[in-house]
């Protein structure tokens, strides 16, 4: 089926060339990072995880969001989603590829990464994260590929895929729970030490993943002959609406707990993010932008008129996606590290080189996504012909 990705329109080739170019630039800057060290980023002694890990955390959510189409279709026989499950699975693959790449570029000694497997450490959440992320990648690859291949041949997919599909559903939940567990089990980080972190990760995942999927479906409608279906897009939009409401509700729960209890250690991180602390407030406009975007997203998605209008739907999905990206990405990371365990403030701002590598990784992810979507859409077009 890969041959379907090699042939395309001039626009397709142009798009792939741009992505490869960006990925290439990112790679060259990464070589500089390998040579110099992680000092080319803006990270410091206090904020030791930055833009790379922020994007990793967010993208694990997007990958898990794929379960929002798989679950209704395979578990509850919601036949309409049959047109988009493959897109959800392929989006998950591309997202996990980006996640793994972000982790690799964030490592100080990446050539030693096999140590995680050579010296398995079951008490370390990072060990489990490696296992579940790679497992999810393989699950989706095997399931997506075989189901699509079967569709192309006009037969039912092999029966041994069914248990794998069923496993992939709790597995999707697990990848994001394990990622949340990276943060919420650390005793010294009050901002993350909350039971609601994992539920919050899942809610923002189920908002941002399907939001991106909606946008991708609308793009596919525009540039190919395949129509994923307006009914399907509307169902996804309802999912996003519920999920983003729950996400904002969880956030408000956090705010209540911190500020009603008046415990300084809990309030300080939120204060740093939303009003600044000890004269440092670089994140304040970003956090308020994130809140505004998420609220606009809620309004546009809950209101049926704006949800059913394509333009406002696009705006809503963009708002939800970027709102969640800021809140769950750098907002969560920096908020956890600042102030540090000694209550000092040392801010973290990403550097341009860091940004170039990040763009390179996203380009790589979208390259993989484009190949996979090209294959899926070509097969669907073929079958419908």
């Amino acid at each position, binding site marked *: 089926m890969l041959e379907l990705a090699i042939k395309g329109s001039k626009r397709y080739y142009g798009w792939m060339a741009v992505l490869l170019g960006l990925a290439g630039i990112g790679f060259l800057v990464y070589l500089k990072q390998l040579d*110099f*060290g*992680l*000092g080319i*980023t*803006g*990270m*410091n*002694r*206090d904020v*030791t*995880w930055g833009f790379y890990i922020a994007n990793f955390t967010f993208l694990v959510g997007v990958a898990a969001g794929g379960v929002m189409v798989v679950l209704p279709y395979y578990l509850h026989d919601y036949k309409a989603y049959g047109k988009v499950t493959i897109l959800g699975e392929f989006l998950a693959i591309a997202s996990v590829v980006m996640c793994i790449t972000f*982790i690799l570029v*964030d*490592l*100080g*000694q*990446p050539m*030693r*990464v096999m*140590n*995680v497997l*050579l*010296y398995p*450490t079951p*008490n*370390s*959440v*990072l*060990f489990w994260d*490696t296992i579940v992320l790679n497992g999810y990648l393989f699950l989706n690859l095997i399931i997506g590929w075989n189901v699509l291949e079967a569709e192309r041949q006009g037969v039912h997919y092999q029966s041994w895929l069914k248990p794998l599909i069923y496993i992939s559903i709790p597995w999707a939940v697990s990848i994001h729970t394990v990622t949340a567990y*990276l*943060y919420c089990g*650390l*005793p*010294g*980080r009050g901002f993350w030490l909350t039971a609601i972190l994992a539920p919050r990760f899942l809610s923002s995942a189920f908002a941002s993943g399907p939001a991106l999927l909606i946008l991708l479906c609308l793009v596919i409608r525009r540039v190919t002959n395949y129509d994923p279906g307006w009914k399907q897009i509307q169902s996804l939009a309802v999912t996003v609406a519920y999920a983003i409401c729950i996400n904002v509700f969880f956030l408000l729960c956090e705010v209540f707990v911190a500020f009603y209890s008046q415990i*300084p*250690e809990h309030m300080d991180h939120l204060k740093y993010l939303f009003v600044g602390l000890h004269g440092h407030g670089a994140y304040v406009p970003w956090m308020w932008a994130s809140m505004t975007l998420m609220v606009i997203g809620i309004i546009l998605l809950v209101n049926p008129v704006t949800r059913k209008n394509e333009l406002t739907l696009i705006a809503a999905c963009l708002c939800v996606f970027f709102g969640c990206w800021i809140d769950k990405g750098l907002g969560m990371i920096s908020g*956890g*590290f600042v102030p*540090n*365990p*000694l*209550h*000092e403030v*040392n801010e973290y701002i990403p550097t341009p080189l860091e940004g170039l590598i990040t763009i390179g990784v996203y380009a790589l992810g979208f390259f993989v996504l484009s190949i996979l979507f090209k294959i899926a859409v070509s097969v669907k077009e073929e079958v419908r012909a």
Partner: protein
Amino acid sequence: MDTSRRRILQLLGLSAAALAAPPVFNALAKEAAAPAAEPKIGPGNEALKAKQWAMVIDTRKFKSEADVEPLVEACHTIHNVPHFDFKRWEIKWLWATEYQHAFSGTTSTRFIPDAVAHRPFLVLCNHCENPPCVRACPTQATFKRESDGIVMMDFHRCIGCRFCMAACPFGARSFNYRDPRPFIKETNQRFPTRMKGVVEKCSFCVERLAEGKMPACVEASGGKLTFGDLFDEGSEVRKLIQTNFTIRRKVNLGTEPSVYYIV
């Protein structure tokens, strides 16, 4: 193609023989090259031993930066800790800070005597009995040594993921954001440097303990710091803890730090 059952069994038998041949051959060959005696590995005769190393810092004896500097110098010099002017890349194993920072979250400086509010409090890795950094490390590059309770760094294994730095509730760890060598003022030839991309922290001077010496900061402190076995009832540190009021950092987190402060 002749694919009878006999053929397949013949092939299987041949493959099994081929796979079994090298180990059998090696086993037979080994007999000829048996070594004379087995090499032995052990601690040196002068090595100091303890079940859990601990430190007691008598903060009353520290009046100003001048009391702290020689200790930090001693530690950072013999361990080739680099000095960066650029604060983002700062590496420190031992340093002094104010009371409200050393014990942040568990104390306040309101209405306390000025002398305490401005007293320098040394902070370093606490070599906890229940270390969250060890729980976090995915490769056991940081681990708690069973022999003496020291939370060690294995720089050979560290992949630089910095999960341990996120896990440490005391901010005791530093990361090498770039090659430290150009920034080491005076290289101690007898101790390695680190390379870029690994995490480092105080090691309770394991290399000095192995030679029967006290940690560098303890030696340089002239009695302000005491070091010994927490689980040895007769040790100096136990006596000090029993006869003075001591506090530790963030005890409520349950990490059981091994650094005690006499206030």
